[in-house]
């Protein structure tokens, strides 16, 4: 079984993506042996009102229970975001809160960022932080977003010691820095932009933060799934239990996915 913790649904304004709806995403997952995926809405990133994207996302994912695990995106600069978050938690049982600070024009360390982090702590929900959606060197002129930095992450982690973080599409993660920010045991790092071989990013993070901190992720539908499948295969030298943790068990525990274990594996 594989749970992909880095996936999106919806259109991206600057490039055509091939798998934008729930049905096409499920077909794509089946063709690569992915059992379930934790997904955020790209529409929530680009709509003025992120919650309208959440409505679409939860509606779409309901068609594939246990396969697509929706995560609500919160824009803490928008009117009424706390009430919208309540709806995501109470009605839709969101498993986490997705934040895209640069796209929503705030900083994780300003009053908006601090406020939403406090809400995450109150709801005991992990926060999903995507370092970037795509490489900045190919940015569209209207794409002014910047990557989230490890320094910003460290500051947040220290200021909100009970919040857990799902780190998607990150590179350049220094295990020592994450350890110093007391993130051991409360972060889940997926490896779509990390290497198992050559620079050995993943083995280094395992040795610093423990195998429970690593998860499978592909950044689909932006990226090919193949690279992450190759990385998972290259982790086969780990003890069998550890491989299974990375493939799905860590994700299931982190996001408290009780229903995914009963999901029908792809044929």
């Amino acid at each position, binding site marked *: 079984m594989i749970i992909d913790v880095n996936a999106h649904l919806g259109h991206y304004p600057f490039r055509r993506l*091939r798998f934008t709806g729930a049905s096409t995403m499920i077909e794509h997952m089946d063709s690569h042996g992915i059992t379930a995926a934790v997904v955020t809405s790209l529409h929530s990133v680009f709509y003025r009102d992120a919650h309208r994207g959440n409505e679409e996302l939860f509606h779409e994912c309901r068609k594939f229970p246990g396969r697509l695990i929706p995560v609500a995106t919160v824009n803490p600069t928008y009117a009424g975001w706390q009430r919208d978050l309540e709806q995501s938690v109470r009605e839709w049982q969101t498993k986490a809160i997705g934040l895209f600070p640069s796209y929503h024009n705030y900083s994780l360390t300003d009053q908006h960022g601090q406020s939403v982090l406090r809400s995450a702590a109150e709801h005991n929900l992990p926060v999903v932080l995507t370092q970037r959606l795509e490489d900045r*060197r*190919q*940015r569209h002129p209207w794409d002014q977003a910047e990557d989230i930095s490890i320094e910003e992450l460290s500051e947040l982690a220290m200021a909100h010691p009970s919040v857990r973080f799902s780190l998607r599409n990150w590179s350049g993660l220094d295990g020592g820095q994450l350890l110093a920010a007391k993130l051991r045991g409360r972060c889940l790092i997926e490896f779509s932009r990390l290497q*198992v*071989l*050559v620079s050995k990013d993943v083995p280094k993070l395992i040795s610093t933060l423990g195998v429970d901190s690593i998860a499978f992720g592909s950044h689909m539908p932006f990226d*090919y799934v*193949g*690279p992450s499948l190759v990385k998972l295969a290259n982790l086969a030298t780990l003890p069998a239990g550890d491989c299974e943790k990375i493939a799905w068990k860590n994700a299931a525990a982190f996001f408290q996915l009780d229903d995914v274990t009963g999901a029908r594996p792809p044929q």
Partner: protein
Amino acid sequence: MRKFDAHNHVWDDVHLQNADWTSVDNLIEAADVLGIEKLFCSRPITKGVMADIQAVRSANDSVLAAMKRQPERLFGYCFVQPGNGKAALDEIERCLAAGMVGVKLYNQFKYTDPAVFPIAERCIDRRIPILGHSGYLTDPTASAAQPNISNALEFCGLSSRYPELILILGHINGGGDWEWAIKALRECPNVYLDTSGSVQEDDTIGLCVRELGHQRILFATDLLMEGGVGKILAAELTGQQREDILWRNFQSVLDRRAA
């Protein structure tokens, strides 16, 4: 299935006494795991530096040392800077005599600059490929850091002047607008491209094949070895197309020298 990695690197001073071979050993270890039979490596001088010829020779010496340590696995491109003039041409001869198989250009000069022409003419004479660093950088900061990086249209400019030149556009996924680059390459049928780079965006390989035909596409990783292999395995290709991209196309490039 055989795999030839057409774009890789040796970055450390492994030609010096008491060298640390860890990075080269890690490269070979990864190639073993991923089933990559041959790796074609260079060591360009980066960060906008226009170095003197001694530094260029030293960089090439590190590749030659790695080739000597792994003679069945590692092969070399000779890095040169067109601004070094005749010394650059002499360096090509030195590297070929020592067993290298091509030339690597970086971003010291745009490939439409006349300073590049003698290098191109020498490569035509020797029937060897030029692998060129490339990018169509739309981010102002990235672009300012590499003012002389060549984009796909500039590759086309050089190829139009020298249709018989074997020119490879390096790392289609190495940063920059790769869709723009593929469209630009439609107009210059003699330019190959390699598939390497840190970007692993879905359908890159498919778009290359649809727009350019699979025989111009060369598998490569540029040290991002799992991603490089993974995207070829994940791309929708026929068995024949995949095999051609993974090794046969580049073998045909290498065979031109023997011919």
